[in-house]
């Protein structure tokens, strides 16, 4: 009996491997290998005649030529990468804090107090998720242009109505980042806050805590994992964003690290440097990515 069971399991195992194989191959060839190609280009050289990248596939022969060029761009004279890197950090931090300040109250209200309107509000919160990013940016480009509604509204209330919002303002880029990524943050916060057991809050009230202290000492600590997950879900894409600021500013004074990478990839002879900068960004993001991946894996195990 036991023997039959094992042989059936073994045959079953081959079935599972066969089912997983096509997807696994696709993932390895088009997700793992590409990052190896990135390493090979970063550690490779340049064909000085055609100014094209020459990848080095053997790790033992990797050169540090591209790395030292990038290092000069960061720390040497005429360095131009430091400013975009710093700006990326500042913009991302500002946009994340503003997003949390808006998203948390909204998610909190909908999860706890929306009552009969909850379904309607949820549909409205999910709606922007289905509107493409380009459409939402285009909408603001319409509103923020010189003769647009924002300036008309400002001059209507007596303020200066001639601000060039799209002419390279950090404020506009941070605003765009908030507007672009906040729908994801709200959904994550909602899902987390909605799962907080209401009886814990009632217990806190029964034990004499006021409304604010219940919020600060029970709800906020219980939602901490959700806040962390939500922060990652907005920070990771913001750090690699180049299009928001290209659309809403396109000025050199607001470039982010994503724009630097894009620029290097598109100019002749700088492909290797683009690969080095991408790898640096990847190394910095490896810690939050790993944390996020592990917590996702843990969450999917807990369903069982």
């Amino acid at each position, binding site marked *: 009996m036991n023997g039959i069971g094992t042989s059936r399991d073994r045959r079953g195992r081959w079935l*599972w*491997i066969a*089912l*997983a194989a*096509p*997807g696994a191959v*696709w*993932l390895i*060839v*088009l*997700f*793992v290998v*590409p*990052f190896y*190609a990135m390493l*090979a*280009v970063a550690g490779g050289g340049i064909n000085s005649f055609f100014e094209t990248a020459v*990848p080095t596939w053997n790790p033992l022969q990797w050169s540090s030529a591209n790395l030292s060029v990038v290092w000069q761009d960061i720390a040497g004279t005429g360095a131009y990468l430091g400013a975009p890197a710093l700006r990326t950090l500042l913009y991302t931090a500002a946009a994340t804090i503003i997003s949390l300040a808006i998203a948390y*109250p909204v998610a909190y*209200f909908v999860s706890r*107090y*929306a*009552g009969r309107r909850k379904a309607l509000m*949820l*549909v409205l919160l*999910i709606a922007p998720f*289905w*509107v*493409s*990013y*380009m*459409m*939402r940016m285009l*909408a*603001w480009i*319409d509103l923020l242009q010189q*003769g*647009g*509604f924002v300036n008309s509204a400002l001059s209507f209330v007596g303020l200066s109505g001639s601000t060039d919002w799209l002419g390279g303002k950090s404020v506009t880029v941070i605003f765009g980042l908030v507007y672009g990524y906040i729908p994801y943050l709200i959904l994550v916060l909602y*899902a*987390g806050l909605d799962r907080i057991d209401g009886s814990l809050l009632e217990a806190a*009230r029964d034990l004499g805590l*006021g409304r604010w202290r219940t919020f600060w000492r029970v709800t906020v600590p219980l939602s901490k994992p*959700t806040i962390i997950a939500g922060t990652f879900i907005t920070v990771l*894409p913001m*750090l*690699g964003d180049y*299009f928001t600021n290209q*659309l809403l500013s396109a000025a050199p004074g607001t470039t982010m690290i994503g724009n630097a990478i894009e620029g290097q990839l598109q100019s002749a002879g700088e492909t290797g440097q683009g*690969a080095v900068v*991408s790898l640096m960004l*990847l190394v910095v993001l490896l810690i939050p*990515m790993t944390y996020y*991946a592990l*917590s*996702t894996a843990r*969450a*999917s195990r807990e*369903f*069982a």
Partner: protein
Amino acid sequence: MAGATSEVLSAVPGGASSARRRRRRGNPWRRPWALEGFTWLYIVWSIVPVAIAVLFSFNNGASQSTWQGFSTKWYVGNSVQSVLHNPSLHQAVVQTLKLSILTTLITVPLGIGFAIGIDRWRGRTSSSLNMVMIFSFVVPELLLAVALFLLVTQLLKFLTLGTTAEVAGLVVWNFSWPAIIVRARLVTIGKTYEEAATDLGASRLSAIRRVLLPMLMPAIFASAVLVFASTVDDFVIVEQLSSTAATQPMSVLIYSNVHGGLQGPALNALATIMLFFSLAVALVGFVAYRWMTRGERSQGATQALTGIAGI
């Protein structure tokens, strides 16, 4: 997302906060008006600009901020600049549809097989593969796009830039949707039904085909909707992997024309068509998902959503 909406709609409690009035000062169940006002303001802020952009795609003039009467000239009327007549706008719509359909057709079956295989084939290899899949979900899109660009231009040169490379990249970027959602559903289903089928004489394969797959249908459908909609939206991967103007979908065309080139309400019209595709798919998905899960109290999609969110 469609699945999530339906779960959420059916999970609304019957106004639990409404009833109990307390005589004490500082009634703890009073409505927080300020918070409610803030929430509505957010909703208006998130939706009204898009509604205005849709409205101006029907403007009978070239302005995106001064209303000059209703017209469909930017869709069909104008013989040079309308979506119907301008070759590059027209081309972009076709390319978006092509990419979305091809990507969905490849990604969903690959993801289903991967989810079932990984869930049942327990071992070190399968959990490493699972981690690779989750990393493909959390990696910033720009980094994946750059890596794919280097792969396609330096190593696998037969995947030429253009539609082939775009589809290859979009499949890997969207792969985690079906893989995570179908897996979450698999875990809630458990192995019981399948074992019952094999005990009654079905082979493993036919147990999967005739018992498991029908039960997985809502999850498969929800992930197909998500893959399709997110491919319609996709920008970074297709921008890096497209070659000529002929392989640029709507998102890339809008991006490259905002500052110069084709301007005016024609771009709004193009964006509105994109919106229409996404909403149509969402609506079909929502209705079909509700129909498939009728009479069921499962939490599959909500769990999938929160699992994806990593909480």
